[in-house]
């Protein structure tokens, strides 16, 4: 609307009424209105409308906001929601782990070296994520397998490293999709979810690890939910499902073969 030579058009009339007309066109428009009484009448009508609308909607006395629209309350509510999610996960883990003192989810030996500590964190994250998300029938994932290219691209860019869901179909597992996870220090992790013909779900968690860490596969088990985890080439991997160890071993082998992490 800054072109000086373009003739006055309908858009200019509105821009004038709304104070959005470029200054260099204002004179031209005034002249135009002087020569066209119909246009001048319309502009005057629109100006009156504008004034009346603003008077009606903007001059109401300040209202009290209902408490649920106060930002402080909404923030508290959100924090509560997140906390509740973790409480559920912890409660499930506790109930599953009742009586099995060796359970790895909440169990924390007093002294750990870096690798053991990393493995423990990895296991915790994988187990908690599986408990929370695999049990969600409707929203286990954020991006579905139908959008696999996007899923790969998105998670790779968030993790800062190429990640892709391995093909487990030869073992009878089909990708449902994936989601982004938060890890304890605020770094992102990727979760891929699969299911088999019976609807049994399997989680594969991938996250970056310090490049010098390395760990061979370690199993973990808790009341019917099993998992295994390993660290290789700066990445941590964990597979969790309510399946026997032997089955998870096959999955882990397939994941390693697919991702050629060795």
């Amino acid at each position: 609307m800054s072109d000086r030579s373009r003739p006055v058009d309908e858009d200019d009339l509105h821009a004038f009424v709304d104070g959005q007309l470029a200054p260099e066109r204002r004179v031209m428009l005034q002249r135009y209105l002087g020569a066209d009484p119909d246009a001048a009448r319309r502009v005057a009508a629109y100006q009156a409308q504008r004034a009346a609308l603003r008077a009606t909607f903007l001059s109401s006395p300040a209202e009290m906001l209902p408490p649920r629209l106060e930002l402080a309350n909404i923030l508290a509510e959100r924090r509560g929601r997140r906390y509740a999610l973790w409480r559920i996960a912890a409660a499930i883990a506790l109930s599953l782990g009742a009586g099995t003192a060796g359970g790895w989810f909440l169990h924390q030996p007093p002294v750990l070296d870096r690798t053991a500590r990393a493995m423990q964190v990895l296991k915790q994250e994988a187990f908690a994520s599986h408990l929370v998300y695999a049990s969600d029938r409707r929203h286990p994932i954020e991006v579905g397998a139908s959008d696999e290219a996007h899923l790969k691209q998105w998670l790779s860019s968030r993790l800062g490293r190429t990640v892709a869901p391995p093909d487990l179909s030869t073992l009878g597992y089909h990708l449902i999709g994936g989601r982004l996870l938060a890890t304890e220090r605020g770094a992102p992790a990727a979760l891929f979810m699969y299911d088999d013909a019976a609807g049994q779900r399997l989680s594969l968690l991938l996250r970056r690890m310090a490049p010098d860490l390395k760990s061979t596969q370690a199993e973990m088990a808790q009341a019917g939910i099993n998992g295994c985890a390993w660290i290789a080439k700066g990445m941590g991997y964990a597979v969790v499902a309510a399946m026997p160890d032997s089955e998870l071993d096959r999955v882990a082998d397939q994941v390693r073969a697919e991702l050629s992490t060795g």
Partner: protein
Amino acid sequence: MAGVMASMEACVPALRRYARSLLRDRQEVDDLVHDCLVRALDQLHTRRDDGDLRAWLFAVMHNLFVSRARRNKARNQTVSLEEVNQDNLATRATQEGHMQTHDLLRALESLSEEQRSVLLLVTVEDLSYAQVAQVLGIPIGTVMSRLSRARERLRQMTETEGPPVLRRVK
């Protein structure tokens, strides 16, 4: 972060005002504003810092409204601005001698939701045409044509029925 929160808080009355032009029911209005704020907080990290916060919040709300309207298609989504503004009507009508508020609101209510959104975002909320296009996810040409039709319709309705509103040409 605290600065953004304060700015966001300052936008709540405008969001409520706009929501009232979209929805009839007071409860639904506040539901929409509430969900908009929750969604905005969730998506705050995706927002470009240089963008206008208010326009962005309107866009978040508009998207929520559209998806909700799609879901509730069967339900009545028309607006009653008269109902919404009833508290103000009596005084306002005498204060605003040059245009009968009652007629104006009735005329406004007769507009399509699309036209009304554009008109209110432009005139009441003072968004630029480009911002309105962004908020509603439509081309700027569509903004202009909706604005033009909305104003012309209001003019015809208020001119034929109301007192001679339009003499106040400057």
